Structures are given as C-alpha cells and as structure tokens.
C-alpha cells in the first residue's frame, strides 16, 4: 500500500515503528510516518485512531515505548516540548495557548526573552517580533495587546511564535476549528507560503474540504496503526472516508439494503429547527423531528453533530436560526428550560457532563425527575428506591446495589444509569449523543431495542453515533452533516451506509476544488 515518495531529497522527518501503550490500551502499534521538505502532510483518522498520541510522541509530551525518529538524517529523542522545539519541531495547538493581555511582541518572545544582566531587552523583543510577523506577511503593531486581535490573527501569531525558533517541522493541530471560512483561507495562504520556504507541515484536521484544499500528502491512521500514505490527488474522498472508518465501500454496499421502515412524514412535527448557526459550532443546520421517530444525525467528528444537539438542548445559544417546538417559536436559554419542554440530553462526555461521580446510582437516576418536581416535593425514599430498582432491572445495570457511588460502575453501566436518569423523567424528545460508546455489543443491542420500544410509545429520539451501522439500523430518518452544515437527508429505504458515506464524501459547489 504505501507508495514510494518521488523525491530526490531525503525525507525531512522519518518515524519508524513507533509504539506507545497506556494502561489497557495500545495507542500506537508500530506506526511509520514520513514528512518531506516543502510538503503539507495531512494526518487523518477518527477519534481514538492515534493522531494526537503520535503528535505528542513527536513533540516530546509522551515518551515512545519503541521505534525510531529521525529529523534531517539524525536521530532525535525529545523528552519535552522544549526539547522538540530546540530540535526544530514546533507545534501550534487547537486552542491558542497565548496570554491575551500581553502584547503581541511579548507573546512571541515569551519564555525565551532576550535578556542582558537579567533585564529584558525590550527593543530586541519588538524587533524580533516584527521580523517574525513580517515573515507571515502580517501587518500589525506588535505593541498591541494580543486580545485586540481576532482569533484568526491570534492563531497566525501563535504560528509566528512557533517559527520564531529555527523550526523545520511545523505541526498544526486542528488550527481551523475556531475560524470562519475567510479566516481559514488566510491561514492556507500562509501555510502554502511556509511550505514554499522549505518547511514540512503536519496538518491535523477533521474537515475534508480543507484537507484537499491544502494538503500534498495524506497519512491515515486507524486504531493505532497506519492505514497508508497517499498523495492527495490520488485519493478520492470516498476512499479516504472508507479507510478512516475501516470499511470498504463495496463491502458497505453489499451489507445494506432490504430495510423496510414506515415513512414517517405523516406524523406531527415536534421540533423544527431552521438555519441554526453558531460561530465555531454550526454553519447552517436544518432539522425536523417528528413525534415517535428516531432521527439519526450522521457525519464525521467535528461535523457539528454534538454542537447541534447542544443548541437544541438550550446549552449553547445559536447566533442565528429559529427553533419551533409544537409549532411555537421558542428561545431555548438553558438546559432547565429544555427539560421543562420535555427534552432530555445524554451527553457523549459521560464523565464531565453526565455522572455525578460520588453520588449513588439511585441518586443519579432520580436527579432529573427530582429537578422537575422542584426542591420541596422530595420523592420519598421508597419511591426513589423503587425507581432505581425498576431501571436497574429494566436496563440490566450491573451494580451490587443502588447505593453504590456511580463512579465505581463500569463505563457501560454508567451509560445505562444515565439513560435511566432521562427515562425516569419521561421526555418527549431524547437526544442521545454516542450512547453506545465504550459499551459491549450486548448492551448496544439492548439500547437499540429500547429506543425502538420508546418510540413506539410516542417518544422522539435524536440519535448521534459515529458507528454507521447503528445509525442505519436504528433511524427512521438520517440527517447528514458535513463541515458544520446539513448536506442531505435520507428517509426510510434510502438509508444505507453507502448512501451516508457518499453524501459525506460528496463535494459541494462552493468547495475550492
């Protein structure tokens, strides 16, 4: 599979057989990676594929268990990010790690300020900053505080800072996630310019359009292994996606078909969202949810699935767009309000947004219901215990007893308990964000069965999952998101993995390709 690199020069950076394990997980299992001079190299893969582990090994945040790393022909072994930077590997992270109230110049020199006799040399700091900024074709006063610049310019300044040392390799870890289209274009112009100056750039992103807009080569990782290394022009989108999720398109086409589901257009509309927009989250999302149906929300990571759910549940407020519930326009301002309207939201981030770790399984289960009743009408101890016992039995939650703190349960059982928390509140719309992540096959199947019986009782479900089979199997309708916008909708028999994949891969008119 890996193709030979048609290059006269020796590669700039060569990683061979990189392995890294964490307790219980093999994050990287012998990964090779080659970066040339004058190259923008995209590193692709779904969540958990090993992208960020590889970057962290490369920048000295983690120590590799085995494998070799060569930069410009000589062996390197960075033990810290500073180490890596001195060797010539600079990194710009997703979130700007700079200090807002310091000046642009100070930010660029931070941590390596020129000093004489222990005093800072302000003149030189400013000069150096101006030189670094000029290299990026940016024109701005380096004495201004960083916070006065837009996020996009801050991102560029972070790059300027990274290049201030003698960088040969520049790693950009999802640099575009908080930028809008015009700002992304600005960044790309800079990336191409730096490439032409001889830099090797590693580009990590979830946005397919961007990969093709700017990358020369693509390396795909899956489950800690390298799937392959391709020239961007030789790899079609659909191939890229199939390789990322590990499913051959032909295989996918064979699998699906023969699903008969009732068309549900006749049912009453529960929620209708149009033109939802929120900077850095979603660009343009329309969504209709009818009573008693399962709507699947499909798309790659970062396509705006969770972001859409958060807006519907009142956690984030949209900048534009309209939400109608039961035909009435509503402004959702808080989760509390959404719950009062009969919504429930089981977050994908079980640990920080789901469980109350030290409270018992019982208390975790009754929490939403008790919140609805208010603080004065406490559910009696008996009612609480009955509810807990009912859901422990119904969902087969494996716990020695209902009073065990929920943090002692396994991930899958925590997930079931959170599901119980929402079911106990009898919602009209239940938003399930990755409800089956990290749970075993049997439990997955149970949750799918449960979803079906809940919708038969009239509940609506918005189902978000990275696993396409699940989306296909469970959904009455699938809304497909790409790059934060709704691009297609499949109903009933149209729903298949192949159809979803080709929608995600399809180029849109405005794409720069």
């Amino acid at each position, binding site marked *: 599979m890996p193709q030979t690199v048609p290059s006269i020069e020796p590669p700039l950076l060569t990683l061979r057989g990189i392995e890294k394990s964490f307790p219980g997980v093999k994050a990287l299992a012998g990964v090779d990676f080659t970066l040339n001079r004058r190259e923008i190299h995209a590193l692709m893969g779904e969540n958990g594929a090993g992208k960020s582990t590889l970057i962290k090994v490369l920048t000295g945040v983690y120590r590799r268990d085995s494998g070799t790393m060569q930069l410009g022909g000589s062996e390197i072994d960075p033990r810290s990010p500073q180490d890596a930077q001195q060797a010539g590997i600079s990194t710009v992270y997703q979130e700007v790690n700079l200090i807002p109230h310091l000046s642009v110049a100070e930010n660029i020199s931070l941590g390596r300020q020129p000093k004489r006799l222990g005093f800072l040399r302000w003149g030189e700091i400013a000069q150096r900053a101006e030189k670094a900024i000029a290299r990026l074709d940016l024109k701005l006063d380096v004495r201004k505080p960083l916070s006065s610049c837009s996020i996009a310019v801050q991102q560029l300044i972070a790059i300027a800072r990274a290049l201030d040392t003698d960088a040969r390799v520049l790693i950009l870890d999802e640099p575009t996630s908080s930028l809008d289209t015009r700002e992304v274009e600005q960044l790309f112009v800079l990336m191409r310019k730096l490439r032409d100056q001889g830099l090797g750039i590693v580009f990590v992103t979830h946005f397919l359009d961007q990969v093709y807009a700017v990358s020369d080569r693509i390396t795909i990782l899956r489950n800690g292994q390298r799937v392959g290394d391709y020239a961007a022009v030789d790899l079609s989108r659909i191939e890229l996606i199939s390789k990322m999720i590990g499913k051959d398109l032909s295989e996918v086409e064979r699998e699906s078909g023969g699903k008969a589901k009732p068309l549900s257009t006749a049912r009453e509309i529960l929620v209708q969202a149009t033109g939802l927009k929120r900077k850095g989250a979603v660009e343009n999302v329309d969504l209709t949810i009818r009573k008693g149906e399962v709507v699947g929300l499909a798309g790659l990571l970062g396509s705006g699935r969770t972001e859409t759910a958060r807006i519907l549940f009142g956690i984030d407020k949209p900048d534009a767009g309209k939400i109608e519930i039961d035909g009435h326009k509503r402004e959702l301002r808080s989760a509390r309000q959404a*719950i009062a309207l009969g919504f429930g939201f089981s977050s994908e981030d079980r640990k920080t947004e789901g469980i*109350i770790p030290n409270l018992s399984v019982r208390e975790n289960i009754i*929490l939403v219901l008790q919140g609805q009743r208010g603080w004065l009408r406490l559910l009696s101890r008996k009612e609480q215990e009955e509810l807990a016992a009912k859901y422990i039995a119904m969902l087969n939650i494996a716990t020695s007893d209902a009073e065990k703190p929920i943090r002692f349960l396994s991930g899958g059982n925590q997930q079931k308990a959170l599901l119980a928390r929402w079911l106990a509140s009898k919602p009209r719309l239940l938003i399930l964000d990755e409800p089956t992540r990290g749970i075993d096959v049997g439990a997955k199947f149970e949750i799918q069965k449960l979803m079906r019986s809940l919708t038969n009782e009239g509940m609506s479900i918005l189902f978000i999952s990275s696993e396409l089979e699940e989306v296909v199997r469970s959904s009455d309708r699938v809304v497909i998101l790409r790059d934060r916008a709704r691009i297609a909708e499949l109903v009933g028999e149209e729903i298949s993995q192949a159809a979803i994949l080709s929608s995600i891969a399809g180029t849109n008119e405005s794409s720069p390709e």
Partner: protein
Amino acid sequence: MKAASDNALQRESKARRHSEAWHHLKWPLIALAVVLLFNFFFTPLFFHLEMKDGRIYGSLIDILNRAAPVMLLSLGMTIVIATGGVDLSVGAVMAIAGSIAALLITKSSYSFLSIVILTVCACAVAGTWNGVLVAYAQVQPIVATLILMVAGRGIAQLLTNGQIITFENPSFAFFGGGTFLALPFPITIVAVTFAILSTLVNRTAAGLFIEAVGDNEKASNYSGINTRLVKLAAYTLGGICAGLAGLIVASDIKAADANNAGLYLELDSILAVVVGGTALTGGRFFLLSSLAGALLIQTITTTILTRAIPVEFTLIVKAVVIIIVCLLQSEEFRKKALQLVRRKS
C-alpha cells in the same frame, strides 16, 4: 425470586448508607473520646457537673457553650463547602451582626425578637451578596468571600464609629448567656439550627441538589438543576448562621467589638468541616460530623486552659490533633500506616 433479590438489594443499600455516614462521624468522635479520656484520668473535676440556680455547670457544659458560635458557623460552612465553595467572610459577618444588634439596642426601642430578626436578615443579605458574586458573577469563592471578609469588618467598624459599644439589655443578654432547660441558651440555638438544617437537607431535595452541584456542577446543570440558585442559597444560609453566631458573641460580652468579634473563626469553622469529613472539593457533606469537629476543637482548647498549659501551645496542639484526624480519614494513609506497623513487628 425477583422479589427476594430486590429485598436483598434494598437491604444492602441501607447498610451502605449507614456505614457511609458513620464512617465520617467515626474519626472526629474517636479523637474527641481520646481527648476526653485523657481528661478523665489527668484533669481533676473535668467531668464534674454541678446544679446551681437551675443551671448545670461544669467543663463539659462549658465546652458546649463555648463551641456554640463555631458550631453554628460550621453548619453553614458545611453547606457552602458542599457546593464546592468556601466562605471566608463569616467571621466578619459575625462582627456586622454584633454592630447592628448594638446599634438597634442602644438607638432604637425595638423588642428583643425584632432585633434578632432584623440582625439575622441583614446577615442573610451579606451572605446573599457572597452568593451573587460566586454564582452569578462567577467570581472564585475564595476571592468573592475575601472581599466581604475585609470589607465586612470595615462595615462593622463604620456602624459603631470605630468604638466598642457596650450595652445593658437583660432580654438580649439571654441570647448568649441565658439558661434554658438547665443549659446555656446557645446550646439550644445550635440544636434548633441543626434540626432545621438537617430537616431541610433530608426532607426536601435541597440536600441532593447541593451534593450534586458540588460533585459535578456541569452535569447537574445539564440535568435541569438551577445550580446558580443552589449556590446562592448556600451562601445565604452561611450568612444566617454567621448572624446567629455573632448575636451569641455580642450578647455574651454585652458589647459589639468590631475588631475582634469572630476574628479567625472562619478558619476554625473550615477546620471543623474538614475534620468532619466533608471534602473541600464539594459533594457529600456531613452536618453532624462537622458539629463533632467543632466540639473537638473546643475540647482541645478547654483542656489546655484547664490544665494550665501555657496558652501559646493551644494553636500548635490544635493543629497536631487536626492533622492526625485528617490523616486518619484517608484510607490510603491508614493502609500505609498499618503496613508500617506490621513490618516493624
């Protein structure tokens, strides 16, 4: 079959619940018992009780009486800490309470009851101010309450024009020095406050909400709990408890001393809460254990005073005992200590 397993489930549930509450009450109680035992053998008349003019006298009663202000503070502090916060201003709020009461007694003709109610209301407002800063302005609790800790004493001094106001008011004197059921009245105030608070947290959902907010605020918010209101209410309760404590002190010394009333007591009450096993990170809380912690601190102080040990040692001994109790509460420490003992023998 199913019913039987359900029953077993419930029985196990109950057992776990009791063991958890007991686990946190155990260590301060054991420490208290050790200190008392020491006094039993080495301090003459420590357990001596005597009935005089319808009131019981003795060191034990004295401890309960002296501990009353810190016990009140620690009740409120427990709730605040359970929400993941802390309230440094309670000592200053005590001073405010004293000043307001002194002003009302000397400058107005309000009845005893109206003075108490007005003062406590003012302190509730002070607590609410903390709560607004923490819950709505999102100021870190330690900073938010530090503001009132500093400013509060200033307010108390302004109210009294920087003077110590002394007063004679027999009915108000009862609040801190009166006898009720043969015991000093402050003990009754603590008991009633404790009863009200434990009813509030056990008979309503307030306890669940407080623990949920302290344990995982984000998840609680997404579960539809009004997390801001819960936090706000916690600081208001803290203010009310501080007001009551301030009234006891002012009534006891028959004066409002804006400089010294309640000085450093916020730290004692935080210690009492920690000794009682409520984690500073918030979540599960234990009101009764906090009271035991406050009693432990006072018992140590009284022991030192009655044994004529130089007073300078008080703070050091206090610190040592508290460190020991805190270490004992850590399961990890107990395990390591046990290993060490075993290896030696």
